């Protein structure tokens, strides 16, 4: 913090600092009780599952199985590629939607209306079966092929998820762009910056603060939604797991295994999101928010005596 302080302080202030308050902090007994109850319930659930007819031993055996790892890789690639299309498309669509040009804003409106209005599963199946509409794909001298050869399961999944996601990301980006104060645009224009530069240098960096949290949500959603691609014969984490389950007889166990992997991946993404938020928060508050480690430590302290604010 940099508040201007008068250089010439009163001469008669005593040199010794005032005695700090020593008080007994408020005891939060409710926290201990609720923690005990929660732990008890958790223990009961763990015991129930441990006693169930589930062969837990096979999960570690298959956890790093090459097919599972391949599934994880495919899930990750599909998630990241589809989100890349979604974010790029979303930014373009949101700018089109907010444009003064009635043609571009109508196109964006129609796109969002269509892709948000139909289930993503239906969209996947439509992409997969577009061969009924187009026999061949002909891009002149560049590329020419049968539709069914061109539209591989991966491309189907990528287009299906990516284009669907773009519609949702467009609305998230639009909310972010609208959250930036109009004075920012005016100040930028008054400096002679073009509309495009104003967006890129001034508006979008500030909009990111509003855009990143819901986008993190979308990434995690996408990670799990990719499990729908079994309908177009694409092999990812869930499909590989259930195949192993069918052939080895450990069906339920393999579902748990897949669930563990999804949890691992979403956790990794959440951590990434946290640091991204920290990056875009620069300048917005006087001090950066604490890192998870710092927060964990602060929470541990607050559990016994004081609130985390006291630690900052």
């Amino acid at each position, binding site marked *: 913090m940099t508040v201007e302080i008068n250089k010439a302080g009163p001469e008669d202030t005593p040199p010794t600092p005032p005695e700090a308050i020593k008080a007994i902090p408020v005891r939060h007994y409710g926290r201990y009780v609720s923690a005990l109850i929660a732990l008890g319930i958790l223990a009961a659930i763990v015991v129930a599952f441990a006693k169930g007819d589930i062969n837990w031993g096979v999960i570690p055996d298959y956890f790093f199985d090459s097919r599972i790892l391949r599934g994880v890789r495919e899930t990750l690639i599909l998630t990241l590629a589809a989100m890349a299309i979604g974010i790029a498309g979303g930014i373009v669509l949101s700018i089109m939607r907010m444009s003064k040009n009635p043609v571009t804003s109508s196109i964006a409106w129609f796109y969002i209306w269509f892709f948000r209005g139909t289930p993503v599963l239906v969209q996947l199946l439509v992409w997969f079966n577009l061969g009924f509409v187009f026999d061949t794909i002909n891009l002149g001298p560049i590329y020419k092929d049968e539709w069914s050869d061109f539209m591989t399961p991966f491309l189907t999944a990528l287009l299906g998820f990516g284009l669907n996601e773009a519609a949702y990301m467009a609305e998230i980006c639009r909310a972010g762009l609208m959250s930036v104060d109009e004075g920012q645009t005016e100040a930028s224009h*008054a400096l*002679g910056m073009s509309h495009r530069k104003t967006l890129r240098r001034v508006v979008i960096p500030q909009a990111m603060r509003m855009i990143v949290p819901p986008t993190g949500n979308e990434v995690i959603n996408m990670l799990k939604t990719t499990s729908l691609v079994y309908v177009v014969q694409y092999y990812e984490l869930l499909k590989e797991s259930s195949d192993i389950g069918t052939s080895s007889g450990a069906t339920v166990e393999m579902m748990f295994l897949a669930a563990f992997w999804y949890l691992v991946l979403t956790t990794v993404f959440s951590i990434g999101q946290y640091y991204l938020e920290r990056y875009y928060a620069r300048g917005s508050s006087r001090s950066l928010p604490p890192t998870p480690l710092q927060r964990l430590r602060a929470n541990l302290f607050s559990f016994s005596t004081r609130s985390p604010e006291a630690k900052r």
Partner: protein
Amino acid sequence: MTPMVKAEGVHKSFGHVEVLKGIDLEVAPREVFCLIGPSGSGKSTFLRCINHLEKINAGRLYVDGELVGYRQKGDKLYELKDSEVALKRRDIGMVFQRFNLFPHMTALENVMEAPVQVKGETKAVARERGERLLDRVGLADKAGNYPSQLSGGQQQRVAIARALAMEPKLMLFDEPTSALDPELVGDVLDVMRSLAEDGMTMVVVTHEMGFAREVGDSLVFMDEGVVVESGHPRDVLTDPQHERTKSFLSKVL
């Protein structure tokens, strides 16, 4: 000598509300031109018309002899493209009531932004000038601070430095001290005074009558979208001719 700003019958409406009802005035180069008046009198709107943040509905507005926002060929007016408007705005600095600094950039980055992005200056050149300008407004030691770490008065001085970085020939001030704590107003006015001494042409919308009297070369009192009275600040402020001016000044002085 061409006037820096020349308004001829400028009209502006927002929907059905007519905010400017025919403004005629001239600002000479190197002049400090003060606009005063009650809120809603249209003085800020007029200021924003000068750099085309608002489009005028009727009349003509010239900056340095060139029409604002339009090109005239014969008796036909052609609207300028956004890029052409942007080109003209380079020469007109503007300082806002609420500073409008870019919050994701440090003070120095704020000042460097336009020269680098608009004029294509190298970062080294822009940094050198940026540091000099921050030093000029008394904030050399705050170059690395983000706006949220600065007081209102400091932010406004950075905003002035940011506008100066484009080396404008005209500076517009839209109530630059209205959002400041009283004790911070002086620092900002000092910077503006030194700009005036250096011969910058300035159009200042203000409620600081003391500043207008000391620094201003001309003063216009506006009310309800028209110029009620104009003249040298000392004359208008000490010996107003119109009833409306008298009653306004009796409330603010």
